[in-house]
């Protein structure tokens, strides 16, 4: 599509299998992302979308049993979560976590400075940080009052999601993974959040947008759409695939999987 086939892959997932306890959730997943691309991953509940996001970010409640994930040429699975963050991976959480007593601004500055330190860059003082944060807050139309409140404490669902996008804007990742960022948002909040995400699209940043509904993709228009079922990507295509899916429903995918129609990805991963 938009990127030439020859451009180097940023993220390459091959045959990824992962389980939680005894239950296998990812069952041989393949996916490749290049800089500048926005990929949407759709699928019914329980298909393994969120697990994929968590495994990529390094959550240790999941055990990777086989497969390979290469990020910028290095073995991603060998890195602890904070090193993945330092390498430029950001996960916008489906359920952002509350941290009582820790100021939102303080948290974000600590995060940014941790990343800068890990990269051998100078840490920012409070004043420099403040001016960056203020600028980015406009992106998600966030009231500055939120910055002095505790991290996500007492935030509404929409405020939490906006806060995630604000963090993303400040931390400037190379690979952003958005895990059901649209869940629990009303239409106005969705527009604001999507606007923030779109503003962060850039030729050297890749995004993996995980969603249950095609609705989000009206606002964040992806370059590629993948459909997950049973822990694998069973169908890949362009923007239109999401619309088709919307029309036919996930049962259509389930039926195809059950019939063995998708024994291999129907459309080769780009």
């Amino acid at each position, binding site marked *: 599509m938009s990127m030439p086939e020859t451009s180097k892959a940023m993220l390459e997932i091959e045959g990824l299998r992962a389980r939680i306890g005894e239950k296998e959730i990812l069952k041989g997943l393949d996916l490749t992302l290049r800089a500048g691309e926005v990929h949407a991953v759709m699928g019914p509940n329980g298909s393994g979308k969120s697990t994929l996001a968590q495994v990529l970010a390094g*959550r240790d409640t999941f055990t990777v049993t086989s497969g390979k994930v290469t990020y910028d040429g290095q073995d991603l699975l060998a890195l602890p979560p904070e090193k993945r963050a330092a390498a430029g991976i950001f996960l916008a959480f489906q359920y952002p976590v509350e941290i009582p007593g820790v100021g939102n601004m303080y948290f974000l500055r600590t995060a940014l400075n941790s990343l800068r330190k890990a990269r051998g860059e100078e840490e920012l003082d409070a004043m420099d940080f403040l001016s960056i944060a203020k600028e980015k807050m406009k992106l998600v139309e966030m009231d500055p009052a939120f910055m002095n409140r505790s991290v996500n404490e007492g935030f509404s669902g929409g405020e939490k999601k906006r806060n995630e996008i604000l963090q993303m804007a400040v931390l400037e990742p190379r690979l952003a993974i958005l895990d059901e960022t649209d869940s629990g948002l009303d239409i106005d909040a969705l527009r604001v959040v999507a606007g923030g995400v779109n503003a962060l699209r850039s030729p050297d940043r890749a995004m993996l947008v995980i969603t249950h509904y095609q609705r989000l993709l009206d606002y964040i228009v992806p370059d590629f759409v993948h459909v997950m079922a049973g822990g694998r990507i069973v169908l890949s295509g362009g923007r239109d695939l999401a619309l088709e899916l919307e029309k036919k429903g996930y049962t259509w995918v389930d039926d195809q999987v059950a019939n063995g129609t998708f024994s291999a990805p129907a459309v080769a991963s780009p």
Partner: protein
Amino acid sequence: MTDALRELTEQKYKYGFVTDVDEDRVPKGLSEDMIRLISRKKGEPQFMLDWRLKAYRHWLTLEEPTWPNVHYPKIDYQDIVYYSAPMPKKKLASLDEVDPEMRNAFDKLGIPLVEQQRLAGVAVDAVFDSVSVGTTFKKKLADLGIVFGSFSEAVREHPALVERYLGSVVPYTDNFFATLNSAVFTDGSFAYIPKGVRCPMELSTYFRINAQDTGQFERTLIVADEGAYVSYLEGCTAPIRDKNQLHAAVVELVALDGAEIKYSTVQNWYPGDKEGRGGIYNFVTKRGKALRRSKISWTQVETGSAITWKYPSCILQGDDSVGEFYSVALTNNRQQADTGTKMIHIGKNTRSTIISKGISAGRGQNTYRGLVKVLKGATNARNYSQCDSLLIGDKCGAHTFPYIEVRNRTAQVEHEATTSKISEDQLFYCRQRGIKEEDAVSMIVNGFAKQVLKELPMEFAVEAQKLLGMSLEGSVG
């Protein structure tokens, strides 16, 4: 949790060194003769000796309390050295003459006794084992009529003040450990702020146990006369020893009409090792008496000691008086803490606030025990209590025992309590944002304790924050 956290949390106790100074120490054991000897060594007036002996005789009739939620082997009170002092070469003319070994010890603790103090703006009284070794800024304070220095000195130079207020808040009959302290206490700090004077700097006492097998029994008495204000800081550390050492201190605060006393403690006595060997038994009685329109505020950050047993309390005797208690108690490894406060409302329109934050890690056991008592005459008394517990790992415990006794219908008493855990979700969230696990734990714990930490004077707050992060030794679940 990961290796990174394990590494951080297994940091050794930083203040565990022993200083080599000549000691003047008495043989182990307790008797009337021993008390006479201590009193003579200190050159005390007769009233002090009489008071000590009365306390001792009363102590003999008391039983060691068993109601606290802490467990330890029986203490042999004849196996303790009750007096140990760094050997004085001669009477010190100035702080410059303090034994260099000892000065060095305080420097290592970050408590410079000399010039740097001027910049910090804190007047320090340093108590080494049982004896005060030096007080800074004496003259400057004296110009304002403020008396600040060692208790022994106060007994000699201001006997009338001492006689008037000693035991007026914590009588020698009060409880087993306070009574023992009354009999054998060897030094401590004394402060008197005259009428209407606002003490221009923080007053601070730094307690250090150095000698082996000694008990430390210090006594602090602070009197703020009408309309006076003082902020007082207390810090403590001890060397690493295999045997437990007893610290039974008494602190009495007297806030006369319209006075305000703010008392802050950062307690970092040696907590014992990971298996619970050694460490200080910190059995302390702290109480303040607040007269009309006065205010007493206790803030404590308790991270040390094998066992902590203390309830800094306020007797709100005067109308419109205010009592506050802000506490962070952290127990890790095998540490045990049973701590809280008593707010006794006697006067009309008295108000009290209790904010208690207990943090348990490792196999630590943390108990909040508090009493809010509203007497018959305390019309319109108000109390607000909040007790929060934070658990790290699954082998520690948090316990809350709030007692409320109300004898006046106009009283309003509120109590809130929560218990939470540092969750894997919180840690992962922080780490995903690039924050290392140990920094995340420290950040979450400090966030939890923030309400209390913000009550501390600035320079202490920074120290306390670092201490909380450091004290999570072995907190791997």
